[in-house]
């Protein structure tokens, strides 16, 4: 089945140790998104890619970076994780909006813990 796949489902890292989360998709969508969801809060958009064009939200900390080497894969890099970065990270994809109403499709998320 076509889908959005996030690995791993659970990730533990140490305070200050760089960590990378991955997302892949078989939907061949142009747009990929990363959201952060802290405990008991709603998901919040960090950034998105339209093809290789990167779009950062204004309030996304510099500690968060992203890479999209090809259409299928997108990575979230956290350069120096702090305790406040512990959260669920959700990846989503959509077709470009020029095609009309295009819903976002979400992966199952990666739950990140910081020791």
């Amino acid at each position: 089945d076509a889908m959005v796949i996030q690995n791993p489902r659970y990730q533990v890292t140490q305070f200050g140790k760089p960590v990378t989360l991955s997302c892949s998709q078989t939907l061949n969508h142009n747009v990929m998104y990363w959201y952060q969801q802290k405990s008991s809060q709603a998901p919040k958009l960090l950034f998105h890619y339209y093809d290789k064009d990167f779009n950062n939200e204004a309030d996304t900390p510099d500690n968060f970076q992203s890479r999209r080497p090809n259409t299928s894969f997108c990575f979230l890099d956290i350069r120096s994780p702090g305790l406040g970065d512990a959260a669920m990270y959700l990846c989503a994809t959509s077709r470009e909006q020029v095609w009309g109403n295009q819903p976002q499709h979400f992966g199952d998320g990666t739950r990140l813990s910081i020791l």
Partner: protein
Amino acid sequence: GIQVEQSPPDLILQEGANSTLRCNFSDSVNNLQWFHQNPWGQLINLFYIPSGTKQNGRLSATTVATERYSLLYISSSQTTDSGVYFCAVERVAGTASKLTFGTGTRLQVTL
């Protein structure tokens, strides 16, 4: 930015009961999605509904865009309906869409 409020924040139902969840938003939007986040954190798309009414089994949704609200109806609730329900409003930004999520309604269905 746009504000999205959901009510009630918490809801406890006995299995078999019906409920209505509400989503209010502060500005015009291109679209609206309803999601169910299960206890394992998976975000499941329920409806993509810019206006009008849609039904899917025991669930239905109505969006009145001119009055800036949407309703999600759950009939004959089951324990598997437990979790958090989010509405998210969509605004198109170039070729992408930006979702702003509501505050969520946490639903617990008991036997």
